[in-house]
């Protein structure tokens, strides 16, 4: 290696970083801005509550079209998705991008997946941090959204709410476009003036510092190909979320009744959690063995496979030392060490 030293790097970074000073005015802006965020979040909880009410209703086959504190909900048959009943309000300066965004919002509130698909670029990408979905092209995105909505999740409502935020728009002659960023939910929608809608993706948000190895990490379960069942993927993402939260109880809730935690051992989810807490990931080591990290590593960086004649999707350690198996119906059936 060149004769660069750590002291060189420290000195270079120190100089390159420059200086800045805290001011009372700066702190006042932070407090004021922070309070506004809290208030916006409270308001959003109200909206999300209404959305969930609507979602529960549509799952029952009806849509709440109007309601008030002192009135009974008025229900009617209609489109069924989380965005149904939301106002398709799109902010931004009048122009092609806003026209397309409005068409997207209208298609979403109409629960019209075909119309949404028609508005997407073929290579559309979609992902969530904590959710259950990912799309590697337009068709798989639509499939994911249909699946999530069927599970009571709300991707279409989030889409509509994102488009209701104030966009950043830039105008450079023929190369213009807008980006809507829903920071509280960490989603962004970008639309170019040439009618290209190519992505609906998250940003990251602050999370708690580590209490275990994986807290604070973010990631999406590996999917690899369109042969993976969405039900298995949804469960994989839920396992991943629970592992990243270092939450044994959440992991326990996802396990099948005949869950196998290590090859050849008893099939019992309670025993699995107890063993993991006590003996670590392989049931043989110490409590310090990082169960959560092993799960995160397999799900985010493992290789995909199948088991039981394709009825189980597996996320495998490249060395074959640890694998996670989820039935195609979404049941988490094993996480085992060894082969």
């Amino acid at each position, binding site marked *: 290696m060149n004769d660069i030293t750590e002291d060189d*790097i420290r*000195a270079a970074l120190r100089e390159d970083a420059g200086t800045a000073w805290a001011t009372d005015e700066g702190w006042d802006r932070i407090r004021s801005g922070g309070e506004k965020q809290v208030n916006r*979040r409270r308001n959003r909880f109200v909206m999300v509550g209404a959305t969930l009410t609507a979602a529960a209703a549509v799952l029952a086959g009806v849509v709440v079209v109007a309601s008030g504190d002192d009135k009974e909900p008025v229900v009617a048959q209609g489109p069924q998705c989380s965005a149904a009943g939301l106002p398709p309000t799109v902010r931004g300066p009048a122009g092609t991008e806003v026209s397309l965004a409005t068409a997207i919002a209208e298609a979403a509130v109409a629960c019209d997946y075909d119309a949404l698909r028609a508005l997407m670029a073929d290579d559309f990408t979609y992902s969530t941090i904590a959710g259950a979905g990912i799309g590697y092209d337009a068709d798989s995105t639509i499939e994911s959204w249909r699946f999530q909505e069927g599970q009571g999740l709300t991707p279409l409502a989030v889409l509509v709410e994102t488009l209701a935020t104030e966009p950043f728009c830039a105008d450079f002659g023929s190369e*213009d476009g807008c980006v809507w960023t829903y920071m509280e939910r960490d989603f962004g929608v970008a639309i170019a003036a040439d009618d290209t809608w190519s992505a609906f993706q998250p*940003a990251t948000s*602050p999370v708690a510092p580590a209490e275990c190895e994986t807290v604070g990490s973010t990631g999406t379960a590996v999917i690899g190909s369109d042969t993976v069942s969405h039900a298995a993927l949804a469960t994989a993402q839920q396992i991943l979320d629970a592992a990243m939260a270092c939450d044994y109880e959440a992991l326990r809730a996802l396990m099948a009744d005949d869950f196998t935690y290590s090859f050849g051992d008893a099939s019992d989810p309670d025993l699995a959690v107890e063993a993991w807490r006590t003996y670590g990931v392989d049931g043989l080591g110490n409590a310090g063995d990082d169960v959560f990290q092993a799960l995160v590593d397999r799900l985010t960086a493992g290789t995909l496979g199948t088991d039981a004649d394709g009825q189980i999707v597996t996320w495998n350690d490249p060395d074959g030392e640890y694998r996670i198996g989820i039935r195609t119906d979404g049941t988490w059936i094993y996480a085992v060490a060894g082969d």
Partner: protein
Amino acid sequence: MMVTVEPEAGGRLVAGGAEAALAEVYRTHYGKLVGLARLLVDQREQAEEVVQDAFMRTYAARDRLRGDPLAYVRQAVVNESRSALRRRRTIRGLHLQPVSDTASAETHVVRDERLRDVAAAVRGLPPRQRECVVLRYYEDCSTAQTAAALGISEGSVKANLHRALASLGVALEEER
């Protein structure tokens, strides 16, 4: 400086205590955090905005803070910096505006030629390696703190640092 605040039951900071702790972090670490953002974003003039946003988000979530507030703010700065880069990458992908990956001339503050080369080489690193280097050598974070701020394992931090130092060596060799 480590800010310590008496936690209530469950490990959370008492709301007033959290606000006071955040104010202390702001007062004592603001300059350093702006430096961190300047080293991570590709438009240096955006750094103060990034740090302000990071503090606002942490302030808004202050009733959920546990432990050292600086760790939260540092992580929020890293995340806000990534978001700023991602937003501009998205815009760049839409051909909205040209964005330089290097510092603008008016903000280039490194005087020594050798150090300037090192700083430029750090800016040329892939984002994850750059984050590891900046947190390790500018923020003086431990491997564990760097891992926590980036949401990756300590092993990944070590691997990224190893690759980064190798890349810096090559880049500086080519510079000669």
